[in-house]
């Protein structure tokens, strides 16, 4: 059911409803969208409804001009370039790249959450085989790569994405020393967060430099030899604690401390430590934490050898890396969703997060673009979802009345039709 039926998102009635809603939204306020700084040096791109064309290489002089264009054309998605160009309207090679903001994309796509197995589905367009969870690269039945994915986003996914965004913020503020004023966090309107860094000095960073920053945040290429783990076999001085001054040194130690404080035999076994040793660790927990805290030599802990220590360290690193989409950050010509604009797959807006408020931020409240309304829709199938304080569904083969925002979400997702 559900997926097997042809999802008729292009039905005229649905599109008319979405377009009308989008237009209402863009007309309601002069500040519906937030134009980027240096607007005339940016390239803009828009995705159209229906034929899903991508219109690129557009340029605007002001927020008013941009908004007028959006009101006149009502695109399904609006983007602008992270880059600044001499002439954004020319072909890529001729634009004259002047620099680019540093952008990070944290998306539930890149975070393994357990809930995906429940709410994400796919169907092979060739042989009609369907399955739950993230789509495979190739269909296991016929080998086709033509696979349609239906991704849902639940509160657990969004919480997971937020956690990654918080870890990234920690790295940007503490390690890279960026000031909170240079960083703006947004909820993307779908499955994740965008972190925009606008700073004169960072603009000129090339792709290779950006890749280094990505690797730093994601913990890629981290070689324990440079963190004091010089000789695992000799195991004389596994950590040079005197060098523990910040950055990943601090992070590794903190991660070890956090994990060991609460680790159980089960959780230790889960990361590959033998049962006997795990029991030993739990039994001597206080002593181990004391050794860690007082920067003593790690071999002071009986039964806990270099191999087990390495597993602990690797795990603590793994817990603290920020899982981001590396391609977005390293692509210096990337188009980014326009803040304040509506997401074509949800009808939710790209909402900004107040400085310092990320932890308490409620994406399913802040991104709701419409209040009230009552729309009759047919819902083929939908998981339960919440918008603001109201919860809807789950639905299956149901005709129901929904507030406009909820109806929009169902129709944009292709899970139902306007009646």
């Amino acid at each position, binding site marked *: 059911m559900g997926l097997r039926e042809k999802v008729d998102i292009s039905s005229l009635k649905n599109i008319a409803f979405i377009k009308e809603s989008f237009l209402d939204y863009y007309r309601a306020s002069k500040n519906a969208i937030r134009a980027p700084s240096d607007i005339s040096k940016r390239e803009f791109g828009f995705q159209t409804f229906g034929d899903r064309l991508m219109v690129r290489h557009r340029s605007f002089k002001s927020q008013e001009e941009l908004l007028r264009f959006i009101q006149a054309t009502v695109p399904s998605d609006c983007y602008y370039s992270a880059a600044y160009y001499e002439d954004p309207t020319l072909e890529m090679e001729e634009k004259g790249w002047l620099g680019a903001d540093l952008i990070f994309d944290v998306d539930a796509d890149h975070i393994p959450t357990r809930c995906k197995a429940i709410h994400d589905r796919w169907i092979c367009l060739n042989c009609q085989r369907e399955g739950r969870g993230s789509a495979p690269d190739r269909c296991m039945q016929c080998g086709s790569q033509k696979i349609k994915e239906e991704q849902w986003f639940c509160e657990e996914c969004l919480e997971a994405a937020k956690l990654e965004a918080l870890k990234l913020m920690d790295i940007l503020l503490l390690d890279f*020393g960026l000031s909170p004023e240079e960083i703006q966090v947004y909820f993307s309107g779908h499955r994740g967060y965008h972190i925009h860094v606008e700073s004169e000095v*960072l603009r000129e960073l090339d792709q290779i*430099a950006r890749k280094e920053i990505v690797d730093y945040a994601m913990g890629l290429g*981290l070689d324990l030899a*440079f963190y004091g783990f010089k000789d695992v076999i000799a195991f004389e001085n596994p950590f040079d604690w005197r060098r523990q001054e910040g*950055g990943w040194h601090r992070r590794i130690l903190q991660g070890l401390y956090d994990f060991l404080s609460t680790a159980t035999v089960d959780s230790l076994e889960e990361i590959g430590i033998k049962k006997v040793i795990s029991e030993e660790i739990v039994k001597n927990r206080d002593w181990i934490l004391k050794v860690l805290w007082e920067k003593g030599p790690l071999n002071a802990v009986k039964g806990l050898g270099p191999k087990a220590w390495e597993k602990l360290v690797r795990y603590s690193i793994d817990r603290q890396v920020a899982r981001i989409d590396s391609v977005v950050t390293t692509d210096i010509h990337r188009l980014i969703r326009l803040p304040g604009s509506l997401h074509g797959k949800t009808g939710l807006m790209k909402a900004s997060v107040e400085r310092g408020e990320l932890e308490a931020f409620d994406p399913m409240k802040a991104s709701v673009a419409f209040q009230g309304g009552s729309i009759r829709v047919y819902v083929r199938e939908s998981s339960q979802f919440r918008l603001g304080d109201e919860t809807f569904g789950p639905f299956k083969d149901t005709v129901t009345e929904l507030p406009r925002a909820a109806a929009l979400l169902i129709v944009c997702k292709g899970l139902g039709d306007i009646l």
Partner: protein
Amino acid sequence: MAKYPFTREASQYVEGIGLSLGDMDKPEFAPILNRAEERIFEAIKSGESKFREDLDYEVEILSFPVSVALVRALGDPFLKRRFALSEARRIQGLLSSEGPSKIVYLASTALKWKVNMKADLGRSMEFLIGFVDYLKVAPSFHDEKWKLINRIVVEGLVHLTKEELVRLMTEGIRHRFEKIVEPKLDLELPKSLRERLERIGEFLSQRKRILKAEELPKVAIIGSFPPCLKVLYESLLAGKSISHVGRFTLTSFLLAVGVGSDEIVRLFTGLADADERITLYQVEHIAGRRGSRTKYTPPSCSTLKTHGLCIENGSLCGKVRHPIIEYRRRLRLGQKAKEAVAEGFEKAQGKP
């Protein structure tokens, strides 16, 4: 100033004297011209120019812009890179013996980097550099220790030892020099300079012939290299920086076709961050004489493809899965291979 011609002080001094190239025919300037020519010869020969303390201060300062003019006039890409490398190496040697405050001063004024000494001296990491400046240069080094994630980064500052900061500055200066010698000089040169230019040009092509004959003797036929390895080899000769995988590929390939590790080390020492000791270690490691004692074979075509080293997706090669097989195939193509030698050589020379 005489030591560090890249500083503002040095260029102000040169400007202050107000000489033009046209004056250089005067006999009293012969020592400057001699030294300028020497700098270039040193670059071609050893890739490292020496600081001549014995020479007159003025000669040492003024010979630098003159040698830059000569390199620009000749416009040879190989010489440009060699000269930039050679002058940068000279400065590396000098910087190493400077005190910390002098180093910080030079980095912040001449390179405009955000560099500081650490308050608590006596530790091994004495210096701090802004991560943006760090990332301008460090990614061109391939050693893992230069990867940002393997450094201490706190509050936007990367911690460095003195040796590391000097290494970074040298690379920054090399970039600077490469920019300085890049624009072609289209002036009518005075006679004294034209003569020297001819001598330099002659020595350069002579030297390139020797290089070619010496570098890869008898055993390896460069002309039969598969395109991917030809490109790597030519980049190496031109003193360009090569990725870690690229180096591994070239080294293991050369070993496989019978080139000795000493010869390979000699080849590699022209690289951006080559330290002879480390290079030797790496080459011997790949040769299976160190560490795991595994002898490494060059990566297959598909591996080269994933690393973006394959040229034109293999369309220039036969239906092979391994560069060594392509090499042998090309060797068999006898006459054609000979033509390829000539062509490969032209390219390696960096001739337009």
